[in-house]
Structures are given as C-alpha cells and as structure tokens.
C-alpha cells in the first residue's frame, strides 16, 4: 500500500486504528500531518509546506527517501504526500510549463514505484481535490471536487479491463476499502461503500469465489453502516422515517440472503446474483439519505431571515434618527408593534382553528414582519419631501468605512479566525482617528498655536476643551491597555502554527511554587487596584460620602467580596497542596466562597435598585453666599482696562453688602439644604452595578484574567474620557451619542471577548466555569449552562450594561473642563473676560432638565448599539448562508454565527437592564426631589436648596442661582441653588 491521501476526517479514524493493530505506518511529506495525527507514525519525514511558492522542497525530500524506504521492508503502510502539483496550481495554473515539468516528475516517480512493487502490495494514487482553471480549489465546482484515483498491483486486480469512461467513486468509499484490505475494522462513522472489484479473487479463475469474496466484503461494510444508522437514528431525528424503515428492511433481507448463501454454498448462483445488488442498493440508499438530510438548506428561510434581520437593522437606524428630531414622540413606536403583534395573534388563532400546522419559527417571523411593516410603511410615507436622502447615511465617512470593513471581515474565514487581532486593530485605528480629528478641528491646541504668527489671528473655533497632552495621553494609555490585553490570547483551533498564551491557564496548573505565589500576588494586586480605582472614582465625584445603603455596601461590601475572591483563588490554586485532613474543609470552602461572593453581589444590586440615589443632603443655617467675585487683584489700577474691571466689582460688592444686611434683618437663620453629588448620580449607579457584576463574572474565569478585568475597566474609562472630549454638550438638548462612540464601544466589547480567553468555537468554551460554586457531584443542569454562558459572554454583559455611560460621561467631564479653565490663577486677563454669569457645572442634572430629550437620547443610544451589533450578526448570517458549501463552514462560519447570535441576545438583555437601571435612578431622583420640596414646605420657612455638582474639595464656594431642576420646585417658591463643595 502506498501513496495515499484521503479525507482527513475518515483518515483520522483509520489512522487511529493503525498503531493499536500493530501496523507500522511510515509517512513522508507535508508537515501538516504531524499536527493532524500526532504519534501515529512509526517513522516519519516531515517537510515544511507553508510556502506556496516552494514547489520543490517537499517533493524532492520525499523522492530522496522514497525508494530506499520502500526497499527496506520496515513498513506495512507507506504514506507519501506530494505537494508540488498543488502548489504549482496555486502559483501558476494547470497549463503552465512548470506544471508539465511537475507532472512529468510525478509520472516518473509512479513508474519507479511500479517497478519496485511486490506482489502483495497495492499502490493507491489519488488527490484530495482537483483544481479550477486558475489552479485554485476550495469551492464546489466539479473541477475542484473531482480527483483521479489510480489503483495498481502486480497481481491482477480487476476481473476485466477498465471501461473507457471510468466509474466515479465517492471519496468516502476509499476508507472502508482500504480498511478491509488492511484487515482493519471499518471506522464506525463511515457511510462509504467498499470498491467491490478490488476484493475479487482473480487468480482462482472461478467467478463464483470472486463474487462470494465481494459479497462478504460488502456484507461487512453493510453491517457496519447499519450499526451506525441504528445508533444515529436513536439519537437524532432528522432522518426520514419511511426511508429508514425501507432501508432497514432491505438490509435484513440482504442479510438473510447472505446467511443462506453461506449455509448452502452449492447451487446458490441465483442468490449470489441478488445479494450483491441488494447490499449495494442498501449502502447507496443510506448514503443518499444521509447526504440529503445532512446537507439540506432551506434557501427560502435563509433569505427570509436575512431580509428580516436587514429590515430590523434599517429600522433601528431609522428610529435612532427620528429620536433626536424635535417632533419625536413615543406613540408611533408602540402602535405598529402592538398592531403587528395582534395581527400575528389573530393569524395564529386562525391557523389553530383551521387546523393548519405551522412552524413556531414561521409564526414568530410573521409576527416580526407584521410589526415591521407598519413602521416601514410609515417611514416610506413620511420620507418623500421632508427628509433629504443624506439622512439615509447618518454616519460620518470614516466610521462608515470601518463598519464596512468589519462587515466584510465576517465573510472571510481568515478574518474570523484572526478576529482577536483584527478587532483591536480597528479599535486602535478608530482611537487614533479620534485623536487626529480632535486635532484637525483645533480642539487640542489653543488657536494661538495654530494661527500663523505673522498674520496674527485665525478665527478661533472656540477655546480648546482639552489640552493636547490630555487627549494624547488618553490615546496612548488606551493603545497600551489594548496591546497589553492582547497578551491574553487563545488560539483559534484552525490556526496552523499558534500557541495560546500561558496566562490563560488557571494557577493550579503552575508547577513552580514561587511563580505561582508571584502570580497570585499579581492577581490579588489587580483585584485591589480594581476596587481602589472604583472607590477613588466614586470619591472623586463625591458619591462615597452619601449615607445611603448602596454606598455603604460599596464601602464595606466590596472589600469583603474582594477578600472572598482572593481566598477562593488561594484555595483553588493550592487545593492539591492542602494537608489531607483539611481536604474536606478546603473543598467545602471552595464551594461556599463563590456562592458567598455571588450572594453579596446580588444583595448589593438589590440595594442599588432599592435606593439608587446616592446623594448626601446637608441642612445648614446661614444664607448662601451669593456670587462673590474672586479675582486676585492688588495694587492701584494702572490702565483703563483695569479700571473698567475694578469699578463694577466695587459696585457689586457694595450691593451685596446692602442685600446681606437687608436679609439678615428680614429672617434670621435662613435654612439651606445642600445636596451633594447630584451631578454624577446616574453614572455612579451604573459604575456600581458594573463593579458588582464584574466580581461574580471574574470568579468564573481563571485567576489571571483579573488583570484583563482591571485593564477592561481602565480602558473603558480612558475611552469614555477620550470620547467625551469630542462630544459637545448641547443644552438644553437634544442629546446625542455619536456613532463613533457606539462603534468603539462595540469593538471594545468584541476585543474583551477575546482577551478574556474566548474564541467563537465550541472547543474553546471554558467548561470549568460550570463547577464554580457547585459541588462536583451534580450533573449538568441549567445552572451549569447559566454559569458557562456567563463566563463566555462576560464582556457582552459588562459592555451592554455599561452602555448608558456613553451618554452620561460627557456631562461628567463638563465638571473637569470648567475646572481646568478656572485653574490658572495668575491669568488675570482670562479672569477678566470670564462672563459674569458663568455657571457651576451642573453635569448630569442637565439631563434631568430636559426629561424628554433624556429619554429620547437613551432610546437612541440603545438603538444605535443594537444597530451596530445587528450589522455584525447580519454579516454572520449572510456569510454562513452564502458560504454554506465552503470547506470551513462548520469549523468557522457556523460557530461564529452561533456565538454572535447568542452574544447579541445577551447584549440586548444587558442593554435593556442598563437602560432600566438609569431609568430607575431617574425615577428615584424625581421622587427624592418631590420629597425634599414637601419637607421644606412643611418646615414653613423660606428656604433655599443648594444642589452640589461635585464633591471636589479645595474649591472656593461659588453658589449660583440655577435654572430650576424641576418646575414644581420653582412653583413652591423655593429658590434653588447650585453649589460646589466648600
């Protein structure tokens, strides 16, 4: 037996059987075989096959060793895999002179082999594919899928001369034929049919014996196929039942005939004549049935689903455009949905009553279409004159280009396999583009620098909101974070030469105690840093001062959770080293600790939902100081400008003095309520929720992923800051989140999916997550499925819940911007031109001032995020359906689609939860305001309310009169002040 190359999957079964049965297999050729069948060969010569241009290395290497090995008799099976012809096809084409050279060389090689063949040896020459006119392959055309098969033995093989037009034999028939010829059992999963002619005994010259040999080979084959069919049909229901019964009957009849033939060898010519066709008929029937049920695609459903998805994406786009228009209201959104759903219900009722059977899938699709159609109709109707065509493409060009690149990437198997590198690439490009655009628009440098000194002045595009170093530092930090997170990389199973990062393995597997301790220290350090940074952030915005229960939980519960996590890691990584009498205790604790942490997180979330307003209220007596002018000024005025500046100040000072005296006489002890941290009340809740979610998710991962989680928080913080630099705050609305922000957020979610050690293939699912906090004796239940799902889609959950931050962050950063502007104290000129009515940063309270715009912006943000995710899943769907005959569809495209679809569902749920959380905070803030007003009214005094933007210390007191936070406050006669912390 020589030169064989069969379909990998079957060959795997076959080659696995070789060593067990004492066959010596010698291989020479393409080194890919080493990866595919490690340890199978008794002797092997591998040659590098990576370079497609290299036509000679592999072939010449084989030629050098082929004949000596053949003569040496140290083999039972000798496999050679020549690559030159294939490479030559790729490099040139089938009609190139090089190809002629290559083919002549192969001819000579075969001639040499034929000369050396012994009588008991079979030479098999075949290829695993053909090639197109251009010399490539991988598609489904006949030229690509058909290859030559050449069988030769010095003994006569075939009873008659082969036909002029040779028979076509399915490739899967090679496996059973070769297995039987080698005396090996046929692999279990085989549905091929042995090449019967090869089994005939020509030498005996008795046609009966040769027919009998053929029949027994076919019968062995049929028995194996029947066993497979039996097992398969017991577990899967996708085979046609009638056909199955017919085939089973056919097999039992053929089997009975065969038994009869064996028992009465004489006079059974007629039986023999029927047995062989019957067995062949059975085998072919099974093959046809399996092919039909396994490779069946419903094109109508594919097209329908893709169209539905595309229409939904379009709808998201459309409504997200409408949401910001001033005439927008929520009514039209609900009506079509309701009408569509009711229509679908009526349809379902009609169908049920008339007894028509219909798939639930089709029904769901009809409901979706029903709710979509009114929308599209409305869009179509309102389009006409009012809307310009440009609103079809609302995205700025570069973002659209990046989105298109990402869309197209899903159609390439290479891009899906290397997506772990492609997504950060696109993300980094987007970030650099953002920084470059900020510079381009002159937001980074003061206009002085940009103008030409000779000409003096260039129209300034407003003062720079952010210093150049600030934005560039943010960008570099982000790039560094992304690059560092890229170190945690798991290989896709289809990547040829690749090794996963050792950082992804759990600490338990580290042998060296010292490194283990070091890594453990690093992980705990990351945990502490994560906790500290969240606390620091809350402290910075003052939300840590509130006496509300969630804040208390953050102060005391979070460290407890961190402690629990660290202890669990210690137990999990060192469980093997525990002394035997403590084993039970350790295993008990390693089950209880994750449960405790998850319980704490859940109770924290409950607290957060119960009292989401994290505000410190302080009632103080004493009039709020109305604006005092704080400009350092000393010495006599020297110029007219100075005079212009000083005189109004003196006037105002005197005015204030008078007013103060008047008020003091009127009412002693004016009550002031100061509420701090209102400015970050929404984002504080979201950040707390994210932290609480991150801990249980972190427990489901390997220890060292905690570093990735730290990087995740850090890089999303940096990204939000960078994005906020480019988003102008439009008061009083409408508020929008630009597309590039949403796209960057989605890209970062994808990137984090990979850096937390995942790949969209089933072999990369981290099953160990199912045993975190679950005693090991349990079977796989819904809880395990939930845990594994949470592990796999951790990044989707976190980023979807954190999505509202994209809307909130620019308002948070408003604080910093104004602070920066105030900071340089020596800059008198700037202090002078500062408008008198400059307001304290009101931050997220701006959102509350325009509740209608706020909810519209939330809706728009959600729709935009869904649109970006929807585009990704649409690309996956299209790729999987268009490339359904692709070589890698079951290895790459279909798993990618499944993971993407699951991720989409998880993300949508997370997004709804995140938005719901923000709305809950909003509701709580409203009721808080109402309560405050009521208590003030009860007190019956003229009082003023001071709301505080941020709790930054080291700032001078500058209370300002504030446009009302809510109308009822004004109506109640309470004057509302906005105060910064003194």
């Amino acid at each position: 037996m020589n030169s064989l190359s069969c379909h990998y999957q079957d060959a795997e079964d076959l080659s696995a059987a070789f060593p067990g049965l004492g066959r010596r297999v010698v291989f020479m050729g393409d080194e890919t075989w080493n990866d595919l069948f490690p340890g199978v060969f008794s002797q092997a010569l591998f040659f590098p096959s990576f370079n497609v241009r290299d036509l000679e290395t592999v072939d010449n290497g084989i030629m050098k060793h082929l004949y000596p090995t053949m003569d040496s008799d140290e083999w039972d099976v000798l496999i050679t895999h020549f690559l030159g012809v294939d490479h030559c096809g790729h490099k040139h084409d089938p009609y190139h002179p090089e190809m002629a050279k290559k083919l002549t060389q192969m001819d000579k090689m075969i001639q040499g082999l034929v000369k050396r063949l012994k009588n008991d040896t079979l030479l098999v020459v075949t290829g695993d594919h053909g090639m197109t006119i251009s010399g490539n392959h991988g598609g489904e055309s006949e030229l690509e899928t058909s290859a030559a098969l050449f069988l030769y033995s010095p003994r006569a093989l075939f009873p008659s001369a082969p036909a002029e037009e040779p028979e076509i034999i399915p490739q899967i028939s090679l496996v059973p034929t070769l297995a039987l010829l080698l005396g090996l059992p046929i692999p279990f999963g085989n549905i091929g049919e042995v090449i019967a002619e090869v089994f005939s005994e020509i030498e005996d010259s008795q046609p009966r014996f040769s027919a009998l040999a053929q029949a027994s080979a076919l019968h062995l084959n049929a028995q194996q196929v029947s066993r497979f069919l039996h097992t398969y049909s017991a577990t899967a229901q996708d085979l046609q039942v009638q056909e199955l019964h017919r085939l089973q009957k056919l097999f039992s009849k053929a089997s009975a005939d065969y038994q009869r033939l064996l028992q009465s060898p004489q006079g059974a010519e007629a039986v023999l004549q029927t047995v062989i066709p019957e067995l062949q008929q059975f085998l072919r029937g099974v093959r046809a049935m399996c092919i039909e049920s396994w490779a069946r695609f419903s094109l109508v459903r594919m097209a329908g689903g893709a169209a539905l998805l595309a229409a939904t994406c379009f709808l998201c786009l459309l409504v997200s455009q409408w949401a910001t228009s001033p005439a927008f209201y929520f009514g039209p959104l609900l009506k079509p949905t309701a009408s569509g759903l009711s229509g679908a219900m009526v349809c379902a009722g009609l169908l049920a009553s008339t007894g028509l059977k219909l798939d639930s899938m089709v029904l769901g699709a009809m409901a979706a279409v029903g709710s979509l159609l009114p929308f599209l109709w409305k869009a179509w109707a309102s389009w006409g004159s009012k809307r310009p065509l440009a609103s079809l493409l609302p995205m700025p060009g570069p973002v659209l280009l990046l989105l298109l690149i990402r869309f197209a990437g899903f159609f390439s198997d290479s891009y899906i396999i290397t997506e772990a590198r492609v997504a950060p690439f696109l993300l980094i490009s987007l970030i650099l583009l953002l920084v470059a655009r900020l510079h381009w628009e002159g937001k980074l440098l003061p206009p002085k620098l940009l103008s030409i000194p000779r000409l003096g002045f260039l129209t300034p595009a407003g003062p720079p909101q952010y210093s150049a170093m600030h934005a560039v530092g943010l960008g570099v930090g982000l790039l560094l974070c992304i690059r560092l997170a890229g170190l945690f990389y798991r290989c896709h199973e289809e990547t040829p030469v690749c090794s996963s990062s050792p950082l992804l393995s759990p600490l338990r597997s580290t042998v060296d105690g010292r490194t283990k301790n070091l890594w453990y220290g690093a992980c705990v350090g990351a945990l502490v840093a994560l906790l500290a940074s969240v606390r620091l952030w809350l402290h910075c915005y003052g939300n840590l001062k509130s006496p509300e229960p969630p804040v208390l939980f953050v102060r005391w519960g979070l460290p407890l959770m961190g402690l629990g996590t660290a202890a669990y890691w210690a137990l999990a990584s060192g469980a093997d080293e525990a002394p035997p009498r403590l084993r039970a205790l350790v295993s008990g604790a390693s089950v209880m600790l994750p449960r405790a942490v998850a319980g704490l997180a859940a109770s924290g979330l409950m607290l957060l939902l119960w009292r989401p307003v994290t505000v410190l209220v302080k009632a103080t007596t004493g009039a709020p100081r109305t604006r005092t002018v704080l400009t350092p000024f000393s010495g006599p005025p020297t110029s007219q400008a100075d005079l212009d500046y000083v005189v109004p100040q003196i006037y105002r000072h005197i005015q204030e003095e008078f007013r103060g005296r008047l008020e003091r006489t009127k009412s002693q002890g004016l009550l002031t309520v100061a509420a701090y941290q209102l400015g970050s009340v929404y984002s504080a809740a979201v950040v707390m929720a994210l932290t609480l979610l991150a801990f249980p998710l972190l427990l489901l991962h390997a220890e060292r992923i905690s570093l990735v989680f730290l990087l995740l928080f850090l890089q999303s913080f940096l990204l939000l800051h960078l994005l906020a630099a480019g988003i102008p705050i439009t008061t009083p609305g409408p508020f929008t989140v630009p597309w590039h922000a949403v796209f960057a957020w989605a890209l970062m979610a994808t990137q984090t999916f990979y850096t937390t050690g995942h790949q969209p293939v089933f072999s990369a699912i981290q099953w160990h997550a199912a045993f975190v906090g679950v005693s090991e004796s349990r079977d796989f239940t819904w809880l395990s499925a939930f845990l594994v799902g949470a592990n796999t889609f951790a990044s989707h959950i976190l980023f979807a819940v954190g999505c509202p931050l994209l809307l909130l962050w620019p308002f948070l950063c408003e604080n910093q911007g104004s602070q920066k502007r105030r900071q340089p104290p020596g800059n008198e000129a700037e202090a002078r031109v500062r408008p008198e009515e400059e307001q304290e940063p009101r931050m997220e309270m701006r959102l509350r001032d325009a509740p209608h715009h706020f909810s519209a912006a939330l809706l728009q943000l959600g729709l935009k995020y869904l649109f970006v995710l929807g585009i990704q899943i649409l690309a996956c769907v299209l790729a999987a359906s268009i490339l359904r005959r692709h070589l890698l569809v079951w290895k790459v495209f279909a798993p990618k689609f499944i993971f993407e679809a699951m991720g989409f569902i998880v993300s949508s749920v997370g997004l709804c939860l995140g938005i719901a959380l923000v709305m809950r905070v909003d509701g709580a803030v409203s009721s808080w305001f109402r309560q405050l007003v009521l208590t003030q009214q009860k007190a019956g005094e003229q009082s003023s309310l001071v709301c505080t933007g941020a709790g930054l210390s080291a700032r001078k007191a500058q209370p300002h009169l504030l446009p009302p936070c809510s109308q009822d406050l004004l109506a109640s006669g309470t004057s509302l002040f906005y105060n910064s912390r003194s």
Partner: protein
Amino acid sequence: MKDTDIKKLLYTHLLCIFSIILSIFIPSFFLENFSILETHLTWLCICSVSVTAVNLVLYLVVKPNVSSKRSSLSYKVTRFLKCCIYFLTSCFFFHVIFVLYGAPLIELALETFSLAVILSTFTTIPCLCLLGPNFKAWLRIFSRNGVTSIWENSLQITTISSFVGIWLGAFPIPLDWGRPWQEWPISCTLGATFGYVAGLVISPLWIYWNRKKLTYKNN
C-alpha cells in the same frame, strides 16, 4: 497662486516618483539576486535613501519657502542636527505605534524599524524639508485651515495618503493566501509606497482642480 507654481509642484512630484521607480530597477544592475520581495530590506534602504536625496535636492533647488535671513554656518549646522534628531525621533515614534498596533515586540524588530524608517522618509522628511524642525508648524499644517501654500497643501495630502496606504497595507496580512508579499512588513511598506506615490500624483491634480476655491491666507 499661479499656474506656474502648480507646474513646478507637478514636476517635483514627478521627479520623486521617478526616484522611487529608479530605486526599484537600478539596483538590480549592481546587486545580484536583487528583488523587492526577496531582498526587501535592501530595497527599503535604497528607496529611503533615494527619496531623501531627491527631496533634499529639490528643496535646495526649488526653495518653496522663504529662506531664513540667518545664514551663519553654526545656525545651519544646528538646524541640520536638529533635523536628524527629529527624523530619528519620528522613526522611534512610528516603531512604538506599530508595536502598539500589534507588531511583535522582539521578533522581527529590525523589519518593524525599517518600516518605521520608510514611513518617516515619506512623511517626516518632506515636513523637515519644507518646514524645518518646527513641530508647531507641523501641527498647524495638519489642522483645518492650517495650510498657507500649495506646497503645504501637497505635503498634507501626500502625508495623509502615505498613512492611509500603510494602514491599508496591513489588511492582506491575516488572509491565508500564503503569498510572499503578505509577510510582515512587506505589504505595509508596499502600501506606504503606493500611498505616497498616489499622494504625489493626486495632490497637484487636486490643487489644480480646486485652484479657484483655494485661497491661502498669505497670498
């Protein structure tokens, strides 16, 4: 702005393109086994040197900007040294950016650095020639309404198209075609070169096309 200026610009750009073409063909007469793909680093060096030389010569001949009044030798020397430092800094800067973008840190460091060198040649050298070691002026050119002459405008266009070219050059790398030009950093250098050449071709045309709309502040 006159048409003669645009013509001058076009001719200098054609000379630059010519120098790149020469750097592809001339070395094969002197060096054995020379080809862009096989001896890629050699070609990179030659291309970089020739583009630099042509840029310098053109700068000295054409003198697009008003020459400084100071012409003492020490001033010129410090200016030249400053230019060298700027060039090296930009090389290291690009190298760091490539590594952050995902280039391997230790393996193939020489290749990555040579890519940084060629990109600096296409972007930093023209900046140095036209504006001198004046970082603020560079920043001005790459902002809206920052250009003051057709030379600066064309510099803006060629630099941006070089960046776009090198960025596009990274896209074939993950594909499994197994072509030799997909290896790091060949596709990127080719992309940068194509981008630079495209910028050289496009910028005079674009300026000619928009000559009515373009009004520079100092003209």
